[in-house]
């Protein structure tokens, strides 16, 4: 997905104020945790850590339990792609660009 598309999304509802949580992408992180937990078998094993990169790009790394990787990725990566899309929308509220990585632990 290009930056241009995210900006279009941003125009529809401009980012407002600081997020309630902590971290550079609190909204996006909360959304990612929620979505990942919703599709796995073992929600307790879901962990998201945040890598603050340069130039305002924040990388969110998702770790899931053994055997759940396929579930967050889905057929032909469809679930992963949908998660990325929704998380990026949430990130607009944080005022950052995020990159979601599914990490095999």
């Amino acid at each position, binding site marked *: 997905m290009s930056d241009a*598309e995210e900006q*279009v*999304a941003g125009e*529809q*509802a401009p980012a407002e104020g600081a*997020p*309630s949580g902590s971290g550079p992408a609190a*909204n996006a992180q*909360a*959304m990612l*945790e*929620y*979505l990942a937990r*919703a*599709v796995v*078998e073992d929600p307790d094993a879901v962990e998201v850590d945040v890598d603050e990169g340069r130039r305002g790009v924040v990388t969110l790394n998702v770790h899931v339990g053994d*055997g759940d*990787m*396929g*579930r967050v*990725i*889905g*057929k*032909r*990566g*469809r*679930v992963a*792609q*949908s*998660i990325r*899309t*929704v998380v990026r*929308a*949430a990130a*607009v*509220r944080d005022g950052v660009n995020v990159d979601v*990585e*599914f*990490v*095999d632990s």
Partner: protein
Amino acid sequence: MEWVETTGKTVEEAKDLALDQLGVDTQDAEFEVLEEPRTGLFGRVRGEARVRARVAPRQQRPRQDRSSRNKGSAAPKAFTGGGGTEAMASTSRPRTGRRPGAAGSATVAAAAPAPDTAGPAPGGRTVDEIVSVEAQADIMESFLEGLLDAFGASASVNRRAVDEETLELAVEGDDLGLLIGPKGQTLGAVQELARTVVQRRAAGTHEGRVRIDVSGYRQHRREALERVTRQVAEEVHRSGARKAL
């Protein structure tokens, strides 16, 4: 690992269903075609395709492959198993000339040996349970509410029947443009995730469908489409000239 057994009009369809239930991508699954649809005269299909599948036991594959975004890396490297590999080569059309008896089981094993290739496993989930539209909508609604919460949006979800087999969950609230996204992309992703969650929570045959709308987006799209169609129809009526839609 549990086996699931599914049926479909084609082997491909049955596999798709199985993948849905397992929640994995093709390359992470192991299939066994139990029965191919039989082809009658003039290619008419009689009988259903039956496959069973499970999540392939995970081998020590190079991990870099998984995180690679290069779609090309989804190559069939996992299918080193001999023999039935051709069953994997998407045969969306049932093969003609197969005698019913010859439909036997072609096993596609992903690297690992499948110890119990004969007959369905006792632990396999049944596919015949019917999940009503209402039950699906219940699951989706609570998923949506959690999502709206995580989004920090104050919005309500209203349920309405579109037709006999379609329910709509309409999300209404302020400032929901982000949830729709450019060209409805985000809405599409939300729908896809909701569908996945339903599939995970309630395996079985899902009757009807549940549609999600945000701030009447789909409704507007539909109306716009209707307008265009009607305009073209009127013009064709006036001019008498053909026009493609």
